[in-house]
């Protein structure tokens, strides 16, 4: 067994209840994204590109699809004999079973998993953000600072800073204070939910935190503040590329719109940093005579007779003649009939939209419309 310099623990347990029907039957990291991917693909691909070959995926809520999707990990080159990707659900030991109680507890319950690789560093990331990040730079910064923990941060607009965990740093980027969703933020450096720890130190804190009866057993709420309070050497690592939390229908839709255009805010077609996806075997898509596709991303397996403008179409989507789709996100295996109108909507997997249906907000300023999994829509909505 070759020991590992670092491994990643990917938090994929959350239900993501603000995504409504999208997470009815699957965990948030398994939600479709970008016409081809699932949200978790971004974190997993980042690991692969950063040379991390051992990833523990901590999962609890509706793990089957995620389990089947991650499989043996070959899509991300994580089907390794030593290491690779492991889905880590809760379990029963001699003293009965425990569901994961918080993010820190989830890692605590898998200390033995981490220990078997004896890593120097552990990267803790979450499976619900859209970004391309080379974690090796974070590691370099961590080592250069001789830090106990390094937290990746991104500048957010000042008026949104109160929605994030905010880092207050000194001039060397050493973290001096951490505030979870502060009313009066002193900085706009928000935590991206990407933490690098020296394993020996984190291990100690996890065990300590577990014995604290009032702890919520969460990295942001408990572990980080405690380490800070103890005077640990903690640094911020500034990330200045695209990063988006897709925790709501609105932000999920926005992130899709960010993919479109000639120079999109976030490009998926990056040969040096491909995003890997599982089960990616579909035929080329077919655009019929009379169809019109502009400013859009269309994935394999689609058959298009209608007009698509400024939208994202996932695999195996069928669009009938006379149909127009604007500013929308169509998830996999959706069948859309003829003369349908879809605007500012997200249509979830396997939905069926019958001929002539109209799906659009009453007013342009209204919320994005969500059509849930396997729904069948006959007419106006």
């Amino acid at each position, binding site marked *: 067994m070759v020991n590992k310099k670092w491994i990643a623990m990917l938090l994929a347990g959350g239900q993501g209840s603000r995504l409504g029907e999208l997470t009815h039957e699957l965990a948030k990291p398994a939600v479709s994204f970008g016409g081809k991917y699932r949200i978790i693909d971004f974190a997993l691909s980042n690991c692969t590109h950063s040379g991390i070959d051992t990833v523990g995926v901590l999962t609890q809520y509706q793990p089957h699809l995620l389990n089947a999707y991650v499989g043996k990990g070959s899509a991300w080159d994580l089907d390794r004999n030593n290491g690779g990707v492991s889905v880590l659900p809760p379990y029963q030991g001699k003293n009965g079973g425990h569901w994961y109680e918080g993010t820190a507890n989830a890692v605590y319950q898998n200390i033995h998993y981490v220990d078997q690789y004896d890593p120097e560093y552990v990267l803790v990331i979450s499976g619900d953000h859209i970004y391309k990040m080379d974690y090796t730079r974070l590691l370099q910064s961590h080592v250069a600072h001789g830090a106990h923990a390094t937290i990746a941060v991104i500048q957010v607009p000042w008026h949104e800073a109160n929605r994030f965990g905010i880092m207050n740093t000194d001039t060397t980027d050493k973290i001096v204070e951490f505030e979870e969703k502060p009313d009066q933020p002193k900085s706009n450096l928000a935590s991206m939910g990407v933490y690098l720890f020296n394993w020996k130190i984190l291990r100690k804190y996890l065990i300590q935190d577990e014995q604290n009866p009032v702890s919520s057993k969460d990295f942001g709420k408990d572990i980080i503040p405690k380490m800070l309070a103890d005077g640990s050497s903690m640094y911020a690592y500034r990330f200045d590329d695209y990063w988006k939390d897709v925790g709501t229908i609105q932000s999920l839709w926005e992130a899709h719109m960010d993919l479109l255009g000639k120079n999109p805010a976030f*490009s*998926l077609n990056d040969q040096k940093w491909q995003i890997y996806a599982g089960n990616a075997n579909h*035929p080329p898509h077919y*655009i*019929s005579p009379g*169809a019109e*596709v502009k400013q859009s*991303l*269309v*994935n394999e397996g689609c058959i298009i007779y209608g007009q698509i403008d400024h939208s994202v179409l996932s695999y195996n989507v069928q669009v009938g003649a006379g149909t127009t789709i604007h500013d929308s996100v169509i998830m996999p295996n959706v069948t859309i009939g003829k003369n349908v109108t879809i605007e500012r909507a997200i249509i979830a997997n396997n939905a069926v939209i019958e001929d002539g249906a109209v799906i659009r907000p009453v007013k342009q300023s209204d919320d994005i419309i969500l059509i849930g999994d396997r729904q069948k829509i006959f007419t106006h909505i």
Partner: protein
Amino acid sequence: MGNVLGIINLINEKPFLKELTQHRCMASVPFGGRYRLIDFTLSNFIHASITKVGVFTKEKYRSIMDHLGSGKEWDLDRRNGGLFILPPVHPDEKMKGDLEHFYDHLEFFQRSHEETVIISPGYHVSKMDFNDIMAKHKADQADITVVYKDYHGTSVEKPIYHTCTFDEEETVTDIELYTSPVPGEHVCLETFVISKKLLINLIINCVGNGEYDLIKDAVKANLHTLRVKAYHFTGEMPFIHSVESFHSGNMAFLNPEIIRSNFYDSWDLYTKVKHEAPVNYGLSSKTSNSLIANGCEIEGVVEDSILFRGVKVHPNAIVKNSIIMQRGEIGEGAYLENVIMDKQARITKDTVVMGGFHPKVIKKAEII
């Protein structure tokens, strides 16, 4: 099935595809926007649950090795069985025929646990149900089953096809080698079912007699001593024997019905996964009756064409009735019609390239 050994026989490939087979064998020629010809046969094997496949290669097989890799995409990276590439054993001598090559790898056959062998070339574009063929083979109690298809292609100038005749019980009575078939004639698809034991005997006997040709010396020569039966393949399959028929065979896929029957209906066509992003259509793009693979970026006009992965069509470029292979790039204002563009070729700004009845072939990585 589990009890069948699949053999893909690349030995008898002919240089029909000219420039396209200059640096690769025919089985490795790209097809249908995303595939290589060999993917069809391999996928047919998978759908028949064949888990041990030997690919007998002759020359220019590096790209097929690249393409197949560990066999993972075809679920053939197995400890028991899996994918075996069997190159020539005496590369410095001219190969006398496929049976010689089989003989050199006799141990491969002998060590296999499978009792039945299916042999097929690597260039048939078809969805062939080997379970059904096997079932008939068994029901017929045949020694050898020969798969044939009624010829439907345009007439061929050179005599390149083998045709077979059979009686009313579908017992093969004759195989005529090297003919120019007319529509309706029974073309032997060089696809056979045979027991491993019999195949080994035939290989040893033929080679011992200085005979080296599977269809001629093992099958045809034994029509009267063995029970050789015919199986009528009635599915879609273009006859590909020239650059033109390769072009038209591709274009036949510009039809949602054909696409559906070949790529869906729970009959996945497996190929190497390349992780390309969805196609990005620009504001000025205009696409019609075309098959577009992932990773393309389209800002120009694409009509009646097939674009492989990662092709770029710049603004005001026009691509008509053409096949653009992987990573091709069509510069601004260029015009292409009736063209087959091999991988990584590039058409510079405002260049016009037109083929006539014979599609014009642009070589790999060529810049025009």
